[in-house]
């Protein structure tokens, strides 16, 4: 719409401009002022029309007032300014030519109507907005409440359905809520659980830090802790749990509640205990086993100053015989009975009995007074075994050998202590058994060497660490070399050359004597054959080889000997087997049979160390023996001059006896010429000893034989 300058339309717009300038600063509209002015133009036109209408319409004024509110002129100041503006300019710009008096009255009435319309609209708008925001708040609240309810329901489901026990308490320890899982764990009612304060839930097995952690948590110094804790159930049994306690804080971070989560570990714990028990106890006797014993021994040995330990190592004497003769079931029952008796011997604190395996038991005592306690303990054990044990109606007498080790803690390791006890026990056993011996470092050292040699023996034979020295046998009549005794030596990598006395008993013990003996026989026979080839003219050189008691009973003795002689091509009569007198004492026909067979083949059998074994002289007749070797003890008395007359008489007697039985006599240990002469006079046939030659390599004998032959 165009407006001609200062025409009615132009004047109307100028009125709207003035109006908008007056009101705009107090409106909250986001319109620009020109936009706002555009909004006012229709309102101005309405006022103008109402001003000039024939009859007064209050509704027009009210509508304009309401329109202001709709245009976001909600500030009362906007109304005030609008009315000011209407009062001052409406008649001036829009009154045109009407009666000023009437126009002013109409304007005033319009203003009243505007004010009423504004107030009415503002009131309605305010109420509507209040209503709207309240409804919004309400609906938001109910949405939140619904969500809260849903989350509460979810939480409740989690709380109730959780497999772990959950409990909530305040910081004074009042239990506020517990879930079903927790109730089931405790097997109690909710009332019972809620009635007790947290600090009352103690148990004797509570770790020392449990309640310190609790105090720190409720003081707000700790956010959570995790412990393994036992509780008493209402029925008095123990409930073991993995317990996690957390501190719950409010929105401001102030400690408010404690939350306990617990997992029932009772069964797992029992299982663990059972597994641990099974792993540390002997299934047969129920005694602690080697594992547990070592743990305890280790603990005892690492105890502090002043602490000592005493250890009894028991091995039953002859248990193998019982097992072999009565069967394993009987043997087991015997072990169970022995275990029970031993158990009753070690009941004091710090004492324990364990079964190491087989028929080996140990008893341990610890503390400060073990020096005498261990002897008492060993005494009690020996006593406990005195009463025969009744198995299958038989009264079995059980004996044991005990090795005792006693000493201060902190010096030796468990393995060393146990080895010492073991060695000492064997000492008791070899001293006849049914006794206890106290460990002795020197005996230990010897035994340790012996032990080392025993274990090294088999490999030594494989590695060729054995060799043979030969000591000449000289005919006393003409001084000619007639043969040699083969003496086995061990060139030990650490200990050097060892004589047979150091290892033959060990080889006997382990059974290695059989292959070793065969090897010695083979080597010696081969050597003898070699000598014979080189000294064809010097008469047959004989070879003496020692037989140990063990070899005597070996069923392959005769066959092995025959095989070797045939293989090496040596005549049987060039071989002499030496058997100790003691090995043949009380020998029955079974034992003598192989020797007889050998003797029938032409092998000479010499009775070695004669005179030391108290042989029944009458018995000599039935032995397949052709040579007596007099023990060196008889010749020792002839080393000095003049010779001991008693010795002379004895030797003379033996020689006479031997010769009457058609036995040749060889003497050992001849060290001087005088001795040799004396023995020749006494009628001895052959001699050996340092006077002639020490044992040496085969070449040495070769030389001696040559000297002999040429000299």
């Amino acid at each position, binding site marked *: 719409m165009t407006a001609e300058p200062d025409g009615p339309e132009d004047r109307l717009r100028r009125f709207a401009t003035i109006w908008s300038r007056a009101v705009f600063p107090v409106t*909250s509209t986001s319109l620009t002022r020109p936009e706002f002015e555009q909004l006012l133009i229709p309102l101005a036109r309405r006022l103008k029309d109402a001003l000039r209408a024939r009859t007064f319409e209050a509704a027009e004024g009210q509508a304009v007032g309401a329109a202001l509110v709709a245009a976001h002129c*909600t500030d009362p100041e906007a109304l005030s300014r609008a009315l000011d503006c209407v009062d001052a300019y409406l008649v001036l710009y829009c009154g045109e030519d009407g009666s000023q008096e009437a126009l002013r009255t109409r304007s005033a009435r319009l203003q009243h109507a505007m004010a009423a319309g504004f107030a009415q609209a503002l009131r309605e708008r*305010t109420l509507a907005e209040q209503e709207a*925001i309240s409804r919004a708040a309400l609906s*938001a609240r109910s949405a939140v409440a619904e969500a809260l309810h849903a989350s509460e329901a979810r939480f409740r489901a989690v709380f109730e359905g959780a497999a772990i026990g959950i409990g909530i308490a305040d910081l004074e320890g009042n239990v506020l809520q517990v879930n079903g899982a927790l109730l089931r764990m405790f097997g109690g009612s909710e009332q019972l659980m809620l009635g007790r304060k947290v600090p009352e839930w103690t148990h004797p097995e509570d770790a020392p830090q449990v309640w310190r952690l609790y105090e720190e948590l409720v003081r707000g110094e700790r956010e959570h802790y995790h412990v393994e804790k036992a509780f008493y159930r209402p029925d008095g049994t123990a409930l073991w749990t993995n317990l996690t306690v957390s501190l719950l804080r409010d929105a401001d971070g102030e400690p408010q509640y404690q939350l306990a989560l617990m997992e029932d570990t009772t069964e797992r714990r029992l299982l663990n205990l059972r597994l641990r028990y099974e792993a540390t106890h002997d299934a047969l006797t129920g005694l602690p086993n080697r594992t547990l014993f070592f743990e305890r021994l280790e603990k005892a040995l690492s105890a502090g100053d002043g602490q000592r330990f005493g250890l009894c190592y028991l091995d039953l004497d002859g248990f193998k015989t019982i097992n072999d003769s009565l069967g394993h079931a009987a043997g087991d029952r015997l072990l169970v009975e022995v275990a029970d008796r031993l158990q009753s011997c070690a009941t004091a604190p710090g004492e324990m009995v364990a079964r190491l395996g087989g028929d080996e038991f140990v008893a341990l005592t610890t503390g400060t007074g073990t020096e005498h306690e261990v002897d008492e303990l060993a005494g009690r054990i020996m006593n406990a075994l005195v009463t025969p044990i009744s198995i299958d109606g038989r009264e079995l007498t059980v004996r044991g050998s005990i090795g005792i080790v006693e000493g201060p803690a902190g010096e030796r390791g468990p393995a060393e202590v146990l080895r010492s006890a073991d060695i000492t026990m064997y000492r008791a056993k070899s001293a006849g058994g049914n006794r206890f011996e106290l460990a002795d470092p020197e005996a230990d050292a010897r035994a340790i060497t012996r032990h080392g040699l025993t274990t090294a023996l088999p490999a030594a034979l494989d590695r060729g660490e054995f060799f043979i020295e030969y000591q000449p046998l000289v005919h006393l009549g003409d001084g000619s070399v007639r043969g040699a005794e083969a003496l086995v030596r061990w060139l030990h990598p650490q200990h050097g050359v060892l004589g047979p006395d150091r290892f033959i008993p060990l080889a006997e013990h382990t059974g290695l004597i059989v292959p070793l003996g065969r090897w010695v026989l083979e080597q010696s026979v081969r050597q003898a054959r070699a000598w014979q080839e080189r000294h064809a003219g010097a008469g047959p050189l004989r070879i003496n080889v020692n037989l140990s008691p063990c070899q005597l009973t070996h069923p392959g003795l005769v066959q092995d000997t025959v095989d070797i002689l045939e293989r090496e091509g040596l005549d049987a009569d060039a071989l002499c087997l030496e058997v100790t007198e003691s090995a043949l004492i009380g020998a029955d026909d079974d034992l003598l049979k192989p020797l007889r067979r050998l003797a029938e083949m032409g092998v000479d059998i010499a009775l070695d160390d004669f005179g030391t074994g108290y042989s029944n002289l009458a018995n000599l007749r039935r032995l397949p023996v052709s040579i007596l070797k007099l023990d060196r003890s008889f010749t020792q008395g002839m080393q000095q001059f003049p010779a001991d007359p008693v010795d002379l008489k004895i030797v003379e007697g033996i020689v006479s006896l031997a010769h009457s039985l058609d036995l040749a006599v060889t003497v050992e240990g001849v060290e001087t010429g005088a001795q040799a002469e004396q023995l020749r006079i006494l009628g001895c046939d052959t001699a050996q000893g340092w006077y002639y030659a020490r044992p040496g390599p085969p070449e040495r004998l070769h030389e001696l034989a040559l000297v002999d032959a040429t000299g």
Partner: protein
Amino acid sequence: MERPAWAPRSIDISMPSVSRMYDYYLGGSHNFEVDREAARKAMEFMPGLPKIMQANRAFMRRAVRFAADEGIDQFLDIGSGIPTFGNVHEVAQSARPGAHVLYVDHDPVAVAHSEAVLGDNDDADVLAADLLKPHEILASPQLQRLIDLNRPVALLLVAILHFVEDADDPYGAVAELRDALAPGSLLIVTHASYEGIPLPPERAEGAVDVYKNIRNPLIMRSREQIARFFEGYDMVEPGLVPMPDWRPDTASEDEDPYSFSGFGGVGRTA
């Protein structure tokens, strides 16, 4: 402890809400006495606060129209508050009928009210979510329905960033949103600042303290700090300026001195 996503915030209308205070400054009655009390207290220090809000509304209106003129027909308004006259959807849909608008606010009352106001407007919706969790906004079904992220979007962060403390990393949230926007999108920001307030800072601080006391601290940032929100955007002329100076429709001598408090600006993604 992080609140689980499904656990709603509680509603406490005994605490003033910045949305309802804003409504009160603009002469509305979508507010409760607690809101009015806090607003009146703030106005004791800064009587011109309503003028700042008005300038803020006017800036927003011009910026939305600018976006519509640029051809943008989808609007994401985060921190929309209580719908008052001259809302984004009114402005946008009057400039471009059928334009899509998604309002986002974390105030459940504001959201509930928005729902009532939008009624059966199919092209506009409201989402209860937090600016600081952009992934929740971007993944919401409401956004999927209304906003096509493959086309330019006008993202409005009007009078909201100054309610986020640096510790909560508003820059990170803004960057995450930026990265989700297609090239040619616009970021529309207004932010409070001590710069431009026609008062000594001590007075302005009094108003700031009011917000601190209602546990909704007002973070006054410098122009430089505010400019950093536009990282990754090219500033639209005339840049980051006092709100009345941004593409004004009329000479700014009409403007109240308070309306020059703080800054407004629009950036465009490359």
